[in-house]
């Protein structure tokens, strides 16, 4: 298990490096391939109506005239250890993790993102709790009462939830609960450290709006998973033992049906942490999504790069956590990863290659299929 986690961590770091290369290439290699020289590139960093000397100074300061590999190294090193921008007379130090200076505010990007992160974190985690509890329980009940009025009604609502965009449901909920009946008036973000009660009250509407979208999806997925699982032979065995129906459903049915949900949950949460653009815009929450939109509108390259890297970081880490959790939940993955302690077990797990191949081909096939269908069904950043 430890070796597995270490191996997974190494993969994660490697993935992040790849992401950084791609991000860097998009912003520095592609303009060059398109025929832009370093002077024109530097011109974008200076502001409106720049003087030639200011541009040249900026070019030197950012090292735009050095080879791309050196620039990339500089960029990577800045993220890891901070960097000094040397513009001749003045040397500015950018503390790690350094994503450079924003065009707009002339401030380092990282602290700005860190200021926006708690908003997104509050929104995403609160909504995630709501949608997991709501979606899964509705899905289970629907599956158990398949064809009933409850099932039809909740699946109808779920269909609406999947189909309706956030800016529609969000605006409707604002109109109804903030203006018509001011239960949650004056929705704006208040840090949890300032006033926890107000923080929660003002986030209720965004939470519910965002959770509605995902709960609908999760309810449908859980229902499908439960219907499949409850038809399995091991459920019949559980019943034949004389277990209470509740135990059969929760311990035997739901346990097996939840694993694919967990995978999708990891991805969804990872995506949302990178910024729930639509929700944040609808409710004017100053989170990473808003930050991203402003960065794009201002063509603020360092900010865009920073937010892309941060979003990628969340997704990669969420995936890693899911992988590790998967090994914890499913013994077919877990046992093959543990070092051989007993000769009896060793017959089944012979070395890392078989462990990997079994892991990827066998036990994963179900959830990867589910994940594929889900990811095709929900391109989350566009929806949330």
């Amino acid at each position, binding site marked *: 298990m430890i070796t597995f986690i270490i191996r997974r961590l190494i993969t994660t770091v490697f993935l992040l490096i790849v992401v950084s290369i791609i991000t860097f290439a998009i912003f520095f290699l592609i303009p060059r391939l398109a025929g832009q020289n370093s002077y024109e590139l530097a011109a974008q960093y200076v502001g409106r109506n720049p003087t030639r000397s200011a541009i040249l100074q900026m070019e030197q300061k950012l090292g735009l005239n050095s080879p791309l590999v050196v620039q990339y190294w500089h960029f990577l090193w800045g993220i890891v250890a901070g960097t000094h921008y040397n513009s001749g007379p003045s040397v500015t130090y950018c503390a790690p993790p350094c994503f450079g200076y924003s065009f707009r505010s002339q401030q380092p990007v990282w602290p700005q993102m860190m200021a926006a992160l708690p908003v997104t974190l509050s929104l995403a985690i609160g909504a995630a709790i709501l949608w997991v509890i709501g979606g899964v329980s509705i899905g289970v009940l629907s599956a*158990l*009462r*398949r064809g009933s009025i409850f099932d039809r009604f909740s699946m109808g609502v779920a269909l609406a939830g999947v189909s309706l965009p956030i800016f529609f449901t969000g605006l409707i909920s604002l109109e109804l609960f903030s203006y018509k009946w001011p239960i949650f008036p004056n929705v704006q973000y208040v840090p949890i450290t300032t006033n926890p009660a107000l923080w929660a009250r003002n986030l209720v509407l965004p939470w519910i709006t965002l959770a509605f979208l995902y709960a609908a999806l999760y309810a449908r997925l859980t229902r499908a998973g439960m219907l499949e699982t*409850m038809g*399995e*032979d*091991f459920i*019949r*065995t*559980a*019943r*034949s*033992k*004389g*277990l*209470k*129906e509740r135990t059969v459903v929760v311990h*035997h049915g739901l*346990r*097996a049906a939840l694993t694919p949900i967990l995978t999708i949950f990891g991805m969804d949460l990872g995506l949302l942490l990178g910024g729930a653009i639509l929700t944040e815009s609808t409710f004017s929450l100053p989170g990473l999504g808003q930050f991203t939109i402003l960065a794009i509108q201002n063509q603020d390259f360092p900010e865009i790069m920073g937010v892309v890297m941060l979003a990628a970081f969340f997704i990669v880490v969420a995936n890693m956590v899911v992988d590790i959790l998967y090994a914890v*939940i*499913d*013994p*077919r993955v877990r*046992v093959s990863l543990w070092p051989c302690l*007993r000769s*009896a*077990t060793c017959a*089944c797990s012979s070395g890392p290659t078989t462990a990997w191949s079994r892991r990827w081909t066998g036990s994963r096939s179900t959830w990867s299929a589910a994940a594929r269908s889900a990811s095709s069904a929900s391109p989350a950043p566009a929806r949330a």
Partner: protein
Amino acid sequence: MTSLAIMGLHRSNEGKKGGGTGITGQIRLDGEDLVSASAERVRQLRGSKMAMIFQDPLSALHPYYSVGDQISEAYRVHNKVSKQVARKRTVDLLGRVGIPQPSVRVDDFPHQFSGGMRQRAMIAMALSCDPELLIADEPTTALDVTVQAQILDLIVDLQAEFGSAVIIITHDLGVVAEVADDVLVMYAGRMAEKGSGNDVFRAPGHPYTWGLLGSMPRLDVARVDRLRPIRGTPPSLINVPSGCPFHPRCGYPSQVGGDRCTTEIPVLRETGPDHQVACHLMLAKQQEIWAQLAPGSATAEAAAQAETAAAEAAASAEPGEGVTEVPGEGVTEVEAT
């Protein structure tokens, strides 16, 4: 399907609570009627007084729980004991069903067991509460022949040891001959023939039983001609043929005369002591036809008999048996010793 009905596990039991079960007639366990019993009462009996072994032990065991957990769960539902006690009992049971190193293997997961071991674990689970009735639904289908023999020996041994009644459902006549005291041949959800193992194998009275025996290769008789399969295919159980369900595939309606076979459902008739056949053919006619059919009827039939309690085997050929739910109008009686 009949066996699932006994356990109250047939499909209509799922979901709707207290809905019509679709089962009529009587199922009696120790004098208690299970059809009219409440769902809760049947649940309490499941596992404790009656237990079941399923066909495919890999899919019948939960992949996420260790074998030991699953067995002790079965034990703890009906016995208020601590986890440690249940675990001891589980290790003990695993040892009894012949799992090597039970105290180590108890923590293994089903995927780490071989097919035979999984079925042994299923048996251990079924026996955890000393049930009075053990239903084995094709317990050896997923296993190879050597393991089959071991599992059957195990079932017979444990049956002697625990003193439970065992119902084995199988289409393997070899298994029937090996373990059964009493045989009940079923066709399309109905009883065709019922009798001791000896009677059914030596002097079968139903054309379907003849067909089953005729389609079996035999080692003890010189092979004279090809095996004689039963012509046709098993009927759809949604649309069972009128009259005797076997008549479309039977070679003898003409010997009965008239159209009794197509119009009248035959009932079980006594043809000998404890031997009943559901066929319109006259007894003399049955004996006459079987005398012609029986291969090497002089040689002794190797129908070994398990000495102890009543083991009943409902044998039925071809997978058509029990695929769909049969509204059992007939009385299914199970008397436990």
